[in-house]
């Protein structure tokens, strides 16, 4: 099924290869450099993942402050997947001003991302999310996505009860199986697809990044310039493998 059809009328999400791996590897290197946390051996994505597991909540939060300097993360993510983005939304965009880097640290008590629709943030129904891990996912630390049809059935039921993101959604968490993506794959999904993380066991934390984008020509729920910025995809893009 065509990309757009799959995202709007099909499952609501799809896995896609990152087009510009050279840029995406640069993004990962920048992250390792900017997060600046002490590691047991030479800094690489796996030593950072291992170090995160041993850190306290406060130490992890402090390290997040270091990432405030990663001001070109959104542009790098979007440009890593520029054809995909252009196919869905054209060249003139609103993109998230500061993309997120999310850590999923092993252990039941450390789970931070519950089941949710992206739509609850109130940006717009026309926003897509790109989510990519910064390493291969070899355990259950990744993100799961619930098929659009099932997500909307839950939404219908909840809306009838005057709820959104209520107990039905939260109780779905335990049954979900996260996709085991490779480094170099990205999942793109629409804002009505339920998604989240499960708690998992591993010696390594999971590190993923995500960014939201939509066409500049489509309406917003809020003109939130704090969250979005205008962005025009560069005219001539030659994807580097």
């Amino acid at each position: 099924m065509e990309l757009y059809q799959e995202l709007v009328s099909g499952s609501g999400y799809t896995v896609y290869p990152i087009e510009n791996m050279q840029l995406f590897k640069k993004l990962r290197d920048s992250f390792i450099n900017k997060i600046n946390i002490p590691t047991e051996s030479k800094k690489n994505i796996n030593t950072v993942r291992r170090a995160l597991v041993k850190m306290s909540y406060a130490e992890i939060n402090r390290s997040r402050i270091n990432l405030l300097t990663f001001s070109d993360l959104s542009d790098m993510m979007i440009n890593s997947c520029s054809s995909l983005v252009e196919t869905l939304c054209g060249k003139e965009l609103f993109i998230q001003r500061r993309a997120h880097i999310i850590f999923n640290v092993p252990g039941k008590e450390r789970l931070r991302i519950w089941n949710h629709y992206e739509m609850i943030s109130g940006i717009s129904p026309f926003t897509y999310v790109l989510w990519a891990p910064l390493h291969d996912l070899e355990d259950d630390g990744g993100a799961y996505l619930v098929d659009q049809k099932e997500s909307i059935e839950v939404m219908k039921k909840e809306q009838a009860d005057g709820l959104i993101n209520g107990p039905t959604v939260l109780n779905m968490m335990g049954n979900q199986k996260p996709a085991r993506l490779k480094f170099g794959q990205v999942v793109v999904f629409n804002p009505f697809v339920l998604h989240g993380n499960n708690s998992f066991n591993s010696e390594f934390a999971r590190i993923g990044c995500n960014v939201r984008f939509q066409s500049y020509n489509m309406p917003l729920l809020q003109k939130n310039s704090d969250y979005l910025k205008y962005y025009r995809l560069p005219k001539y893009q030659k994807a580097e493998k």
Partner: protein
Amino acid sequence: MSTATITTDINIGPFKIPSNGQNMIMNNYAERNNISVEVVIPEPMMSNALATTQWVHNDRKLNRVILCSIHQLPTKQDRINKLLSNMEDVEFHFALEGICGQGRNFLLERIKEAKMFMSVKTIDSTKTTWLELYKMLQEKGTR
């Protein structure tokens, strides 16, 4: 180095932020970025000319100013020209957008971006439902 925070009218582009809230946002931004604030400038309500700021700059020679948002920049051309000619050597920080810079081009880009946001159509969230929003995605497409 002289740094000022600037409070303005409660109506800031698409936002409504009372002065006390504006101060909280700017002071938090200053703290996160290790910036010491020496001057607090209250601009009058119903004005986005930043005229008081320009008078203070003439008197105190400001090096850096902090505003809550790009939407506090002037929108009328004569006001924009005055701001550019008087303050292009001052570093501007916009706390909500988390961006800073200096000079004519930087300020013109920010004014342009604010204008682009204000020209975008919006969906009235008080007159829709979750399922209607989903229907919009299905029917209108995303380009």
